């Protein structure tokens, strides 16, 4: 196992170096006007992170994201368990949820804005409609694929439905549910950022759009870099936990 994780780290490192080289190469081609070099971007990022103006935006995005993710998990688990138990509802609604995943949800954002008003709640709602889908779908599949012998044991022990969920379904479905949470985490983040890019007065997405307005390429690159590094780092950690859970199961 250590050898495998060593190989993984080496691959990730090679990839990062290759991407940096690519960036440097493109910079050499197009010049400072279009693209700041990796070094210049890092320097600007350091300045941005050490200043005060950055943190209110970060706080705003993270608050919207945290609330949205919490709601996605609660709603997603609830609906997922329900659809997993109720075969008819599950069969009928699952394809509809899958289809909902494939539509351009950004077009729904104006409706949310009109319903919730410009601000935190619209952003949270937009994050939730992105993040809740994978949580529902993975939970549903996990509940359905629980080994029948486990369910029979539960019936023999005369467990009530909540007890069944708590002591049998949840532990058995944990690896799958975690995968749903992992994907939901990423999609919620994407949703929150997208909402800020379209209409908001604060947040990282807003900062990106201001960067274009002011033609401040260094700001655009720095914020993009921070978002990408954050998303990739968290997703890598979650992926590692995910793999470990699946190996145990």
């Amino acid at each position, binding site marked *: 196992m250590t050898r495998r994780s060593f190989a993984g780290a080496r691959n990730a490192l090679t990839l990062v170096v290759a991407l940096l080289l690519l960036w440097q190469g493109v910079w050499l081609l197009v010049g400072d006007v279009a693209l700041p070099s990796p070094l210049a971007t890092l320097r600007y990022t350091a300045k941005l992170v050490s200043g005060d103006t950055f943190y209110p935006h970060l706080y705003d995005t993270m608050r919207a994201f945290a609330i949205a993710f919490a709601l996605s998990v609660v709603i997603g688990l609830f609906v997922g368990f329900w659809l997993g138990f109720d075969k008819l509802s599950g069969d009928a609604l699952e394809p509809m949820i899958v289809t909902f995943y494939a539509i351009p949800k*950004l077009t729904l954002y104006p409706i949310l804005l009109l319903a919730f008003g410009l601000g935190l709640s619209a952003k949270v709602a937009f994050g939730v409609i992105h993040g809740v889908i994978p949580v529902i779908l993975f939970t549903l599949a996990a509940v359905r694929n629980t080994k029948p012998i486990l369910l029979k044991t539960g019936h023999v022990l005369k467990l009530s439905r909540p007890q069944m969920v708590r002591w049998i379904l949840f532990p058995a479905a944990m690896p799958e549910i975690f995968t749903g949470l992992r994907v939901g985490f990423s999609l919620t*983040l994407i949703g929150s950022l997208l909402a800020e890019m379209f209409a908001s007065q604060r947040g990282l997405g807003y900062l990106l759009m201001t960067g274009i307005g002011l033609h401040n390429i260094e700001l655009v690159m720095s914020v993009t870099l921070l978002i990408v590094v954050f998303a990739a780092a968290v997703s890598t950690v979650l992926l590692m936990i995910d793999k470990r859970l699946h190996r145990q199961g």
Partner: protein
Amino acid sequence: MSRVALYRAAVVAAAIALLEVLCLTGVIDKITMQAPHLIARDLWRLLASGQMNGAIAKTATNTALALVLALCVGVVAGALIHRWRGLRDTLEPLFATYYAVPVFAFYPFFIVVFGLGDLPQILIAFMLGVVAMIVNTLNGLDRVPTVLLKTARIMRLSPLQTALRLTLPAAAPYILTGAKLAVAYAFIGIIGSEFILSRGGIGYEISFAYTNFDNAVMYPLIVLILIASIAINSVLGRVERTLLARRGM
């Protein structure tokens, strides 16, 4: 109709009826949303008048361009990466975290580099779609039966002949799954970037109507996009199922 289809139709009908009642009784005010039958009427008028034809054509052309690009590059890149073990190992962490990174965060950067034209939108849509294509091509090629590869070697086929005549057709169902995702992603990429910042297309028209509180245009267009993406998805889903069924999967 089966029970499941009946259930599904009932859910959709109930949702529309509920909206209709809420709108007519004034629980949802006119500024927030129009009654569904008015949306249907406005959509019909909008399409009949032809004033959206330009926007529809622009969105459709850009989506098609991005899709074709993603399909071709995805399959070729997938086939090449499959042959080259080291490259695949290096790219594995990229594929694993790719969809956790908000690709739209690169849109401002592309606008700065390429200007506010069609190219940044097509690039975003391409970037969203191509990785799904590569990953599914790799997945399909992994499952090509060894006996086919041995046959190719006995027939002394060149690598290109092997790819075109044996491995790619054998991997077709998986490649089609990738293509289905790529279609959805290309559509999301184009509409989304039009929506955030652009000078034309359906996404732009929706955001323009939103800014002007023109609900008589905004809601019909949102419904149009929903119908289009749901239709495309169910057609592709059906093709995929037939193809898989023919292979006995």
